[in-house]
């Protein structure tokens, strides 16, 4: 009988070795080690054998079962690994072969500059105010110390509308009207910037557009001095352009501020950018905003937004920024 055991064991191991798939291996498992398998049959037959034989043959049967089981496990693991390897090999992808693309939207360059500026001023403690683009003569000029006969008005190349017959409704030429509206609506202290679209009767060229974007700042508080203006311009310069940049003020003229200044930014290489205008809010402007210039003082500044984007990205011609050509837009 011991030979039968040996024979069954050899046959079982041979079948395990011959199995080429997990499915085959499962049937080998059932047929060789199952209840109807040869080793189980030998175990049953062993019941009628003498005690001595039962002991030695029984042991041989158990060893045979363990051996076949071990072979089965090993073979199963090997087959699994083979299958995984085959699957992985079959699944190879060339990751440089990408068909189509994820489409993402592109914000307008002016918007990008606008938001960057807002963020810097918010960081400096400012809030952001907005106002109408179609304005009255009062807010655009009169309240800003430019009565009707004021010669400086001609410098603004204003576009007028027929909204009212008297021609007093116009397209704002700067965001300064929002300063007056803010002063009328909010009790000081005021720390505000006013970005927005403005309009001038200018023929478009590489550096001018009749419709463009501007940001102005207004601070009104007790004891605001021109040193605060210079300090704020400088803080903005460093926050927006970088710590290697600095600023200077030099005299200029605007009807709505006095003293007035132009502010220039000094690049780390020593060259200058003429950025914008600023000054101490004119007493007449504070009065137009409903504030007593003996109690409150303030400063204001302003400059172009689009130019920031133009210079940052090296755009030669401002007109391209407003062409709405996706070949331009999708570059940024």
């Amino acid at each position, binding site marked *: 009988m011991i030979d039968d055991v040996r024979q069954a064991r050899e046959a079982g191991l041979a079948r395990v070795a011959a199995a080429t798939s997990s499915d085959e291996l499962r049937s080998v498992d059932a047929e060789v080690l199952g209840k109807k398998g040869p080793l189980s049959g030998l175990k049953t037959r062993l019941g009628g054998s003498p005690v001595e034989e039962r002991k030695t043959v029984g042991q041989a049967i158990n060893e045979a079962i363990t051996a076949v089981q071990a072979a089965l496990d090993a073979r199963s693991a090997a087959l699994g690994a083979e299958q995984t390897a085959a699957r992985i090999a079959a699944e190879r992808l060339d990751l440089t072969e990408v068909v189509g693309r994820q*489409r*993402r*939207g*592109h*914000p*307008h360059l002016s*918007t990008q500059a606008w938001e960057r500026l*807002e963020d810097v*001023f*918010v*960081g*400096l*403690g*400012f*809030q*952001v105010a*907005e106002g*109408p683009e*179609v304005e*009255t003569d009062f807010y655009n000029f009169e309240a800003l110390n430019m009565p009707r*006969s004021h*010669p*400086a008005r001609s*410098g603004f190349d204003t*576009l007028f*509308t*027929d*909204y009212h017959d008297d*021609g007093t*409704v116009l*397209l704002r030429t700067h965001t300064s009207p929002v300063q007056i509206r803010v002063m009328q609506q909010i009790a000081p*202290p005021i*720390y505000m910037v006013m970005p927005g*679209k403005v*309009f001038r*009767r200018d023929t478009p060229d590489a550096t001018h557009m009749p419709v463009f974007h501007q940001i102005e700042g207004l601070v009104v508080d007790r*004891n605001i*001095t*021109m*040193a*605060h203006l*210079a*300090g*704020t311009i400088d803080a903005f310069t460093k926050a927006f352009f970088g710590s290697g940049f600095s600023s*200077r*003020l*030099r*005299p*200029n*003229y605007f009807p709505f501020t*006095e*003293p*007035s200044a*132009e502010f220039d930014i000094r690049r780390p290489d020593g060259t200058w950018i003429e950025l914008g205008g600023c000054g101490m809010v004119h*007493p007449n402007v504070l009065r137009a905003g409903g504030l007593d210039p003996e109690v409150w*003082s303030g400063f204001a500044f302003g400059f172009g937004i689009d130019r920031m984007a133009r210079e940052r990205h090296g755009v030669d011609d401002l007109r391209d920024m407003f*062409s*709405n*050509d*996706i070949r331009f837009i999708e570059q940024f």
Partner: protein
Amino acid sequence: MKIVLSWLNNLAPVGDDVESIAADLTQLGMQVEEVLHVGSTVAGVITARVLRTERHPDAAKVQRVWVEAGDGVERHVWCGAFNMQPDDIIPLATPGTAMPDGRVIEPRPILGIDSQGMLCSARELGLGDDHAGILILPVGTPVGVPYGEALGLQAETVFDIDLTRNRPDCWGHRGVARDLGAHLGVAVTPAVTDVAAGGEPRTAAVELVDGERCPRFTTIVLSGIRVGSSPEWIRRRLTAAGMRPINNVVDVSNYVMLELNQPNHAYDLDTLGGGGFRVRLASEGEQIATLDGAVRDLTADDLLICDANDVPIGIGGVMGGLDSEISESTTVVALEIAHFEQTAITRTMNRLGLRSEASGRFERGVDPYGMPNAQQRFVDLLRETCPDLVVHVGAADARHESLPPEHRPVSVRVSQVNRILGTDLDAPTITALIDPIGYVVTASHDDVLTVNLPSWRPDSTAEIDVVEEVARHYGYDKLGKAVPTSTEPDVTGHGRLSPVQLRRRALRQVLLGHGLDEVITDTFLSPSDLVAAGLPADAIRVTNPLVVGEDLLRPSMRAGMLKAIAFNESHRGTGVALFEIGHVYPPGDRSTELPPEYEGLAVALAGQDATAAMTLWRELVNTMGFGARVDQSLVPSGMHPTRSATLSIGRDVVGAVGEIHPDVIDAFEVTERIAWLELDLSRLLANEPKITQWKATSRYPSTDFDLAFVVADTTPAEKIDKAIRQAGGALLVDLALFDSYRGAGVPDGSRSLAYRLRLQAMDRTLTDAETAEVRSKVIAATTKLGAVLRT
């Protein structure tokens, strides 16, 4: 304004350090745009005589020229010009000469033959614009000397400065010299207050009829004049300052204007009708021929200078008449120096489109008390060429009550200066800063200085104007830099965007995330743009548009967006997805102070149909918390009649969604469909969206099943959705329409809508019976709407 350095130095010793003067001028508010060197000579260019010329058979565009430069040596030069003859004297740039344009003259061979220099045109030497041929120098010019020496050229340094409106005084060299001199601590030559007269009495009388327009009109009579040319130095300075020398009288007149900012006019007294002046407003339609040869039609708002016989001889403060010029034979002149009202001058200039050196100055502001000094300067300068000049006693000085007072005192508080500037200046320091520029402190009591404003600064009228002068001469760069901290501590550091601004940014991010590109389209439209876009033609009109015809303010962004789509499509950009966030300006009923302008969003998806617009709208509902009724029974104008809906809140229209009308698409020559979404952001962003509240998720298994119904096209899917949700009750936790099908198996006029329903309870696993009950309730509810279950 062109400021000549040597001229400045005549008036105040400001030195000749060009770079530092330019920096000082800029720091004083007179921005130097450019420093020009006029009349400077090019070293290495000498005069030479042409010996002979010869063409070369193989060189068509150049000829050979032999010249001699005083040393008897024959030199050969190739030359591209053909305008010289033997014995002409011409400028020769010798080898090694650095030309103003950067070229260095080298013996450059042509056809193997060297050129020993270059013959120069006027332009190449910076002597003008003439580049037609070689500069031929006057006969008799010595040969072999530097051409500058031969021509008597002297270099002048000129600052081209950009003047601001508040500095009318700097339209004369004296004003610049005064300001710069004060900065450098050197004094400007004093002005005289009376002209020295010695001749027999002779008066050019003045009658001021409309004196409020001409508050002062002075004349003096000068005789012994011989009209000729001006001395070289006057001609040189006028040329450097950008004016053409004419004759000694006219040149002196211009010189005085450029030096003292005092426009003036010399009339030939012998031809001046009645020997005097009458200043009056023109009558409507009256005409005058001006110096420039044009005949001008005048209105009753234009001021005329007439002779004593009331014949017009000039437009006051703007331009003289054609017949008022002095002639070669003039010997006696009436010198007129007058003052004109600023704003009226501007009106006349604008009306006539006539800007002259004089009118530009009167418009900005001229010293109403500078006449005697200007008269004396005129006399002194003219005497250089007219040694027999006689100044007659009998000067006329007609004044009107509207003449500004000579002395204009204002009170300036030392404390106010320091409050605005953040300085700690005392009264003597302030006085020392402003006294040299003519702001004379006449009294000082405690905090208050009495400052007499200078008559040449009409822009200065109030305390704050003096504060600015203090700042300018103290130096903006010395004011210090400090970041303000508010007196109210809860203000400082509270920078933030408003909720609306934050929501606008979030909206933009959602749109960008959906692959939409942001555009900024035209504000100005033509009426045909509105018609093409299918929009009402009523819009606010710009009365002075930049482009004739493009005079309407956009009441919608649609036309601009469609143009952008058309532009891109014509440049192989199909399927573009664009959005714009911007203001639009519907006219409303014009009863309000300002139009009902609002901020809008426009989205155009080329090559996509209305469902894409609806999908985006639903996404905005979910992400932004927007809400509005989708009303397909109300088709917005210009949109696809069966694929569009109005978005409304209550009775207010807040948007449109769907597809652009095929006719509109054709009108813009676009070939693709265009899905369209338009929203009133002023309305929609104003609402604080509800904050989503937590809902528990069930721990029990869910059951999914699908139902498909045949539904008539006339029944909106929204109704079926609603019926299913109602019937499903609390157990229906999710409902999705996953297919809409038309075709075989579905009757015409209807479609099959397939839904997936997910049922789930919070507290138990649902039994089959419960699921079946919900299913039959849903079927019953939809059947009532005419839906037929597909099996």
